């Protein structure tokens, strides 16, 4: 029996996901459908090799139709302590809650600001 090297697989998968998402970001003004294809591929790889797409990367595309967010295809408003992002391709509304900063975090931010 041949054994899979899962660690190596996941390492390569991570690199591929970051490449694809960067490419999607570059391509979204040239060819929107192609940018969506890159996001789709990145998601497929992430699902197959059980890799999380980080929070920052996740918020760059629509969860439902996978089109990358583009300023002319999106509406953003802040309401009831959450950011609401409406995708104009599919109409899906994503709500991101805004929580008050914890005291420990705010201390850190203050320290950084002082420096």
């Amino acid at each position, binding site marked *: 029996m*041949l054994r*899979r*090297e899962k660690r*190596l*697989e996941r*390492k*390569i*998968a991570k*690199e*591929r996901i970051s*490449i*694809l998402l960067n*490419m999607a970001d570059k391509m979204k003004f040239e060819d929107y459908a*192609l940018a969506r*294809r*890159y996001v789709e*591929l990145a998601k*497929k*790889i992430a699902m*197959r*090799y059980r890799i999380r797409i980080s929070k920052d990367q996740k918020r760059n595309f629509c969860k439902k139709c996978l089109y990358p967010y583009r300023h002319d295809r999106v509406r953003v408003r802040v309401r009831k302590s959450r950011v609401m992002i409406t995708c104009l391709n599919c109409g899906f509304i994503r709500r991101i809650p805004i929580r008050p900063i914890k005291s420990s975090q705010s201390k850190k931010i203050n320290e950084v600001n002082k420096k």
Partner: protein
Amino acid sequence: MKSMKPEYILAHEWIGLEVEVVYSPNQYEVGLKGIVINETMNTLTLRTEEGYKIVAKRGRTFKVRFKGYVLRVKGDLIAFRPEERIKRGLMLIKKAKGWW
């Protein structure tokens, strides 16, 4: 970019790489040069100077520039779905090296 071995091309991302068709049963395809734009199980889409060209993977040989190396890759070795190629490609490398 941490995984540096050139044979990992079989498992790695082809979108965004520079590719040239070196051998093909169709003589008009030989010499096509461009950047890979899209990939499916059986085809690569290249952006060349004359526009987008779709080339089948099976039966062709490609010349690729990958992380500083210039490699010749047989298309039959990458004829899997792009997301499946990580698993299958690494298996192919292992089989070729003879680790049973």
